[in-house]
């Protein structure tokens, strides 16, 4: 009988779903990602960004959001890659390290605002999660970049060698 009573609960349709302009929403997110890389985050509103990303997924603009993210991240990482390549001498490793740390911090923030996509869209479409995507792009565009790869290897080997020599020298002392 109680079962019968429950059935009376009437579920009314939603009056209207919020309609979000996907272009505008993506613009907001794209700008925000740029600001995140510029480390101007304190003026950004998490609520606004999370909500826009959420509505983009809900209204089936997931592909647009994801491909936009890939493009923006790639573009940014390429810029970083140029900066690193331009760094001279000892600065090279320092710049590389600083940019890597910045990238990591930024990725964490981007992952935060795109959390809804990570939770729903990405598993259902079998894509790479945001954080992993950022790491992959870094690997492909920076670590595997012909300019950087050889130089990084050489710098590291030089360092190791210098280290050995110092040890050797100290040992002789």
């Amino acid at each position, binding site marked *: 009988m109680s079962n019968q009573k429950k059935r009376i609960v*009437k579920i009314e349709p939603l009056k209207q779903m919020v309609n979000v302009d996907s272009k505008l929403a993506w613009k907001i997110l794209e700008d925000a990602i740029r600001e995140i890389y510029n480390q101007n*985050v304190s003026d950004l509103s998490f*609520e606004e960004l999370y909500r826009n990303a959420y509505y983009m997924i809900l209204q089936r603009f997931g592909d647009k959001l994801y491909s936009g993210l890939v493009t923006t991240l790639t573009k940014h990482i390429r810029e970083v890659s140029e900066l690193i390549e331009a760094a001279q001498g000892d600065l090279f490793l320092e710049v590389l390290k600083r940019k890597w740390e910045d990238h990591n911090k930024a990725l964490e923030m981007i992952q935060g605002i795109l959390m809804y996509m990570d939770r729903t869209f990405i598993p259902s479409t079998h894509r790479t999660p945001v954080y992993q995507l950022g790491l992959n792009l870094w690997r492909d565009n920076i670590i595997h970049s012909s300019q950087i790869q050889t130089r990084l290897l050489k710098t590291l080997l030089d360092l190791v060698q210098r280290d050995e020599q110092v040890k050797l020298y100290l040992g002789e002392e």
Partner: protein
Amino acid sequence: MDRKKQKKFLIVPPFKCTWRKELRFKEAGRGCVAFEASAHNDVTLVFRERVGSQHYHYRTDNTPNYTIILGSHRNRRLKIEVNGKTVVDETGVGLCCSLTFQSYWISIYDGLISIGKGRYPFQNLVFQWLDSNPNCSVQYIGLSSWDKHVGYRNVNVLPSTSNHILLWNQMDNGELECDEDEDIADGFIDGLESEDVWGLKCFLENWDLSDVLFIVGDEEKAVPAHKVIMGASGNFCFGSSNPDVIQLPGVTYPVFHAFLQYIYTGQAQVLEEQLGALRDLSLQFEVMPLIKQCEEITDRFKLNKKLFDSGRKVEISHPCSLPQRCTVFPFELPIDLQRLKQWLSTGEFSDVEIHIDGHGLVARSHKVILSLWSAAFTKMFTNGMCESNSSKICLRDTSFDAFIEMLQFMYSGELGVQDATDKGSLLLQILLLADQFGVTPLLQGCCKTILECLSEDTVCSILQVISSIPSCKSLEEACERKFSKHFDYCTTVNTDFVFLDETSFSDILQCPNLTVTSEERILDAILLWGMEASDLLGWEAVDTILKTSTPDLLFGERLLSVNMLLPLVRFPLMPITLLKKLEKSSLSIQIPVLEELVMEAIKYSVSKMTQPGSNQNVRFQHRQSTFKEFQYICDGDNNGVLYFAGTSYGKHQWVNPVLSKKITVTASSPASRFTDPKALVSRTYQGTSFAGPRIEDGKNCSWWMVDIGEDHQLMCNYYTLRQDGSSAFMRSWALQGSLDEKNWTNLRVHENDQTICKPGQYVSWPVNGPTALFPFRFFRVVLLGPTTSDSGPWNLCICFLELYGYFHM
């Protein structure tokens, strides 16, 4: 993924045993395991102090253990063995194995072994046995077998309830109603596992969102905590002079850690010699449950020195206040629920004001409470964007009422809407909100409530909302199944279904259980959906529109989808006359796909021959569940359902279907010479045939009722009655339908209907409106007011009844 699958389904080979680290009681000697098992016999669970090997067998174990065997002796007995000695060997307790997965639970509490059936631990207790010499060290659970494979899945270990009363009370309750959908329940259990990751435990000694510091021990270690959590668990005098820092020089860090652990996770480990200090600390801050548990454990220890090796860690586990929901905040914690709820309204210790665009201030809340439910809120408050440094957040495009419900859920762990009928409309909005912020238990609660009150009238609106939410897949599928079972109803009562997205609509059309009165209806529905119609039209009306328009204009973006969906109509099942009409229509001319399908169907029905290979095509096959049409031609014809039942559904010559037991007829008064069930369907005129009144709810009530059989259903659209030889004419009555013989739906109500005016007169009426599309098993003609007779105004005097419509068998 693999790991999860494994967890979902595990087969233990004969004479083997599976042990897992996580299959362990949190507290030795006390705990409950809930699981599903499938086997020929001998579902065997072993409980012992340490894990065993895969080749472990309880028969060869000489360390203390409990072994519980469901379906021993070729699935006839329940057996409990203690250290290899049989102590219980019972038949007929109803704890047998089954080849389909059955849910069981086993609880052990200081030697009291309780075994029950069903998905809800501590409910539906079936058997109980108390070990007079309790083994309080059993902790690990082994899943084992005898000579056959045993399948296990959904194995969950829960803390045991200390409330034995609760267990005993369950004895009288009947078997709990099982969900009709196995996969839905699975979905819930999956969710529970994933939800384990997030919770208040993430904030244990976490500087994030903390607002009070404890300075502990001689080393003055600073330990962060959250006022709202601490305050709701005990009495910390945060109001006094320096409320943000509390000095505890006399307390060592390990003890304080255990204390916090207990408050934040409901469990703690301490060394046995620290129990006293922990108790004193709890006493200082009035954390009542912990005081009680410390004292209990100390007493147990005093009673039985052997229980604990000194120097070993003692586990304390807070008993869950609501056993069914012990993974949900705040039931697993020693939190004062009333206090917490009160603080939501008073804003005590609040660190965030929530505003909703257009509503202003909604609540003064606590960041840590929002965060423990939702990773999104955690990020919002901690990732350095503007909300992190602000004590105010503003939410936009958020339903005020739904958000309030969500907040209340976050503070109470329960969905308030469950029993408030007026809040039903909110459910979908709460569900959306829960999904947006990833509050999984709330999402599950909403899904469950919606599922429980799912009806033909609501499926469309639910589907519209949830089809875009991936985490509601099982609810979505249930809605689609419901829709496809009531396809006629859902597509003819209103045009809500045109708002479904293509995937949902196409899923419905491809549902193997799609039940529909004719293929024409499917064609109509696809066309209506394609043109996003606001009025209900048949294909002929659409055809007329197309004479002066083009498919591009009519269907717009959906033309492609229409072309994809049309092949789901089984044109070959349509009557040839209809196909010929379709062939000549503008629909065919303008939509090549349709033309091709119609031509194919015509070719098939003319020659009964198809192109090689296309026989396998589902389009040529009858639907699994179709309705046979019984059309009213004239009074007393042979086209009705009751006549059809008399021919054993078309197999034999007609015999009275009551005598051949194809249908059952009953009257409101006992059977007698003039109240003869078989006479009503005998197809011969009866001078006197009536159903006399009985008193129901203090009122006179007369009826004739037909049960068309358990596996049969009828969507009734016409019915015929015949007056007997008397002149007691009915004036107010109703034809009603029912699925369960209890709840009746009016199919047609007659009020002061003067039609019957001669003895022996036949009369027939159509059943109009949406109720004609509801399939029912029971039908009755019930008198609503007195007849024209003065002597027996409550005698329902008819001698014949026939029903028409769409019959399903």
